[in-house]
Structures are given as C-alpha cells and as structure tokens.
C-alpha cells in the first residue's frame, strides 16, 4: 500500500490511479447505491417494531441485531444513508451554490468584496460545530434545521475558496491577454477564469461532504438534529447510548458506517487534491 502512495507523492504516478483511491470511490458508490435502493435491499422496514425481538444480538435473522424496539439495525442503517448522506449532500450543495456565487461576485467587484468579506468573517468567528449547534438549536431539531445549519457553516468556506482562486486567476497573464483581445468581463469570467477556478472547489466539496456527514451525525447524536424515529446514523447512535452495556451493537454499527463513509470521502478528497492541484503540498 505504501508503494503506490510513494509514487503519487513523487508525481510519478497519477494519484487517482492508486488502488486506495479506487477502493474509496467504489465504497462511496456502493454506499450511495445501497441507500437509494434501501427499499429493496433492506431485509425489514426501518421502523417495524418487534416486541418479541428486543435487543437481539447480531445473528442470522438480524445481521446487525435489533434495537430497543426490536427494529432491525441493518435496515435502519441502510435507510439512514438517505438521511445522513442526503442531508450532508443537500446542505453542501446549497453551501457550494451560495458560497460560490458570492465568491465569484466578490472576486470581481471591489465594494461587494469588502462587504461580503466582513460578513463571512463573522461566520468564521465560530468553531464550525458550535455554529451548527447554535443554528440547529434555534431552528428547532429536524431535518431542515440540520441542512440549514450545515449549509450556513460551510458556505463561507466555499466563498473564501472561490474568491481566492478567482483573484489568483485574475492576476494571471492569460487573463490580461484576453482583456487585451477585447473580451468582456463576463466572457473572461465565464470562459477563462471559471474553468481554472473549479478544481480547488471540487477538492473542497469532497472534504466538506465528509465534514457535513460528521456534523449531521454529531447534531443528531446530541439531540438537536434529526429526531427519532427517522433513522439517521447519529439518531441511531443517540438511541443506543443509554443501552451501551446491554446492546453495544446499536452504537457500534452506525458509528462504523459514519467512519467508513467519512474515511472514503477523505481518501477521495486527498487523491483529488493531489491530482488537481499539483502545487499543494498538504499531505
């Protein structure tokens, strides 16, 4: 495993061709497909109660065991993909759209840049999880609040990345050349600056998705995010914490799902960063 990574670090081998990167992509793909197909893949309904089968240990009938209401844990985790990954995906998309739009405008217009920069500074003044908790607490627990909280936390990050790369690209000689050729500002921005500014945004998106999943599950775990009986990975963990000694599997499996997903996203993010931005030495 160390060998291909070494090649990647030295630039002799494309980072996205490493087996680790491919395995991570495959895993992410599998998780998303399983989540979408949860209705057909899951052995039971995620909310079906079974008074006879409370806290069954993982076994043949229930691969991951059952919880305090006898609900099948595997099914809950599979349906949980939709909630946990879905919330993170929607929230990061919103953050990306809002942050990138403002970042583009700020990178072009001076006055707006000052104003946006000041406002974003306010959001950067909070530790991310604290801001998310505050927003979720104010809006009241629920799926929408979790989405809003994550979007508000990460929009400033996208703003900063997009603005920074627009400014950096604007100073390049090819932009000057395009100006000299008489291209309008809109055309330069769209046809020349934007394509070059995209790659840091892609890397940022992968990284932020993993943070989004972590924050969603943290919010739900703390009880200010998704509420039971909706099966989010964090909610399942929250329900499991009272019965840790009795039924550890209720806590172990959803946490494992979170970790695997976040791990895969991190590996993908690192691979993308190394391949899209050869200048960065972040590893």
């Amino acid at each position, binding site marked *: 495993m160390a060998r291909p990574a*070494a090649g990647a670090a030295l630039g002799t081998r494309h980072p996205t061709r490493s087996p680790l990167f491919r395995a991570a992509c495959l895993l992410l793909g599998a998780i998303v497909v399983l989540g979408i197909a949860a209705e057909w893949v899951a052995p039971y309904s995620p909310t079906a109660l079974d008074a006879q089968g409370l806290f069954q240990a993982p076994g043949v009938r229930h691969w991951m065991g059952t919880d305090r209401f006898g609900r099948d844990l595997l099914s809950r985790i599979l349906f949980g993909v939709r909630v946990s990954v879905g919330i993170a995906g929607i929230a990061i998309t919103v953050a990306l759209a809002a942050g990138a739009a403002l970042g583009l405008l700020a990178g072009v217009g001076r006055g707006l840049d000052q104003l946006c920069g000041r406002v974003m500074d306010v959001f950067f003044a909070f530790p991310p999880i604290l801001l998310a908790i*505050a927003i979720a607490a104010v809006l009241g627990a629920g799926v929408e609040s979790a989405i809003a909280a994550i979007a508000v936390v990460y929009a400033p990050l996208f703003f900063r990345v997009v603005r920074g790369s627009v400014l950096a690209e604007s100073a390049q000689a090819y932009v000057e050349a395009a100006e000299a050729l008489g291209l309008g500002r809109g055309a330069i921005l769209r046809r020349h600056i934007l394509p070059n500014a995209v790659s840091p945004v892609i890397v940022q998106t992968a990284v932020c998705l993993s943070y989004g999943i972590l924050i969603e599950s943290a919010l739900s775990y703390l009880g200010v995010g998704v509420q039971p009986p909706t099966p989010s990975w964090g909610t399942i963990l929250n329900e499991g914490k009272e019965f840790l000694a009795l039924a550890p599997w209720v806590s172990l499996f959803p946490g494992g799902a979170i970790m695997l997903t976040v791990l895969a996203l991190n590996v993908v993010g690192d691979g993308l960063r190394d391949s899209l931005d050869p200048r960065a*030495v972040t590893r």
Partner: protein
Amino acid sequence: MRTYLVTRLSAIGLTLLGVSVLVFGMIRLVPGTVVEQLLGQAAIASPEVLQSFRRFFGLDRPLHVQYLEWLGGIVRGDLGTSWLSGRSVLGLFLERVPVSAELAVLAVGWSLCLGIPLGVVSATRPGGLRDGVIRVLATLGLSLPAFWQGTVLILLFSVYLGWMPSLQWVPFLRDPAGNLLIVALPALTLGTATAAMITRMSRSSMLDVLGREYVRTAQAKGLAERRVRYRHALRNALIPVVTVAGVQLGYVVGGLVVVEDVFTLPGVGRLLLDAIFQRDYPVVQGVILLLAAIFMGLNLLVDLLYAVLDPRLRHG
C-alpha cells in the same frame, strides 16, 4: 508590528460586534416567541400571562433597545441572567471553564507530543513503510467521529475492562490522580483529530523544508544528517505546525461540546447543551458569544506567535 496589531484588533472588534448581532438575532428568530416556547402549551391559553412574562423578560420592548441594553451589559461584564437558576451567565460560565480548559489543553498537548514526532518520522523516508502506516493512521484519525470514538472507549474500558473512573468530577488540585483518571479518555477522544492534523502538517512541512536550498547547503558542507534534520530543518518546519496547532485548539473549543456530552463532564459545552434543551436563552446567547470570543482570541494569539517565530514576518 504595532500597526499590524492595531489593524488586527480593530478587525476583531468589528467581527465581534457582528457576532453579537448574529447571536442576538438568532435567538429572536426562534419560531414562535421565546416565551411561548418556554411556557409551552399553557401560554397559549392565557394572553395575559404571556404578556406579563414578556414584560418580565424585557421582550416587549423594540428589538434595537433590547440589543443595545444587552450589548451595554456585555461591555460592563454583565452577560445576563439565567432564566432558570437566576444566576449570572458569566458566573455559570466561569464555574465550568476549568474543566473545559483542562480538557482542551491536555488534548492539544498530547496531540502535539505525538503528532510532531510521527510527522517527522513520516517525512524521513517518504514512501517507506513507516510513512505509509503513519499516513493511513492519520487519515483514520481524521475520519473518526468523536462521539463514536468516545462511545467505543467507554464500552471498552468501563463495560468490558471494568475500569470505571468516578462519575463525580474532582478538580485537579484536590485529587490529581483521580482527576487525570476522569479526564484521560475524554482528552484522548478530543485530541484524536488534532493529532492526525498535526501529523499531516508536520510531515508536509518537513518535506517542504527538506527540499529547500539551505538544507542542501548544510548537507553539502558535510554536516551530519541528524544535525541537518533536527537543527536546521525541524526548527523551520515547526512554524506552520504552530499555526495548525493554534487553529486546532480553536476547533477543540467546538469539539468540547460533543466530548463533554459523551463523557458527561461538567464543562462549558455541557452548560450550553443543557441550556439549549431547557430553553434558557440568556445562557445559550452568553455561552456562544464567549466561546466565539475565545475562538477568535486563540486565532489572534496564533498569528502573533507566528510573527514572533518567523522573523521575516516581524520585520517585513
């Protein structure tokens, strides 16, 4: 240096003002009024009771008056009073600070002690077996959700090994051993992501410095490899690591909320969460504001430290 400090401090002042507006506004955005939330169903039945409560909490006045009054209080060191206990928010906060501060310092401390050597070892032979293992571990550390890691640790130590630290908090000065026993697992959990981050940063920073010309010069003039590595390279490589450590200390402030909940420790994070669930909004407001201020203060401190460590910044 002085102009830098002045501009930075004024920028921070401005941002803090923005933060206060945001925190103040957020609480006022609560669906329904705060009082209705607080009183629940009972309030809807009787508008008079509702009105009297609003007057009691000062919520019947215009928003800007409420805000300016709150801000004026903050300037005088009065962050408001808890609706439930009637105690001052600042007092409640200060009471809890030692627990959280100890946890945060221990977490960042152990992650520095482990992360820097791991990063240096990793950078010694990039692509080697040790480098590979360390990098995989670092990626794993970054992917572990703190609340789950804490849960697994509790399960392992308390449930399976029967190693139960006291559930009652004991201050370090009263019983050092007992205190450390309580704090060990939470600090381990809180510092994991930070340790991973510092390992990565130390590695890349060390690799960066080892490629510099002055290092080649030192090697060319025949200095021992060890000397080049530790006397010349490491010192410079540590500068960006300090920044990362400082920034991480800030994130640890956020992580406290989660870790204190998992391990039921009486710190500021617990105070905030309890206040949220009890809808004790003055406490929520005050604690969030104070934590944001601490976060910003830490960031400023890191920038200053950076300037002290890197003479190019000091004189440039």
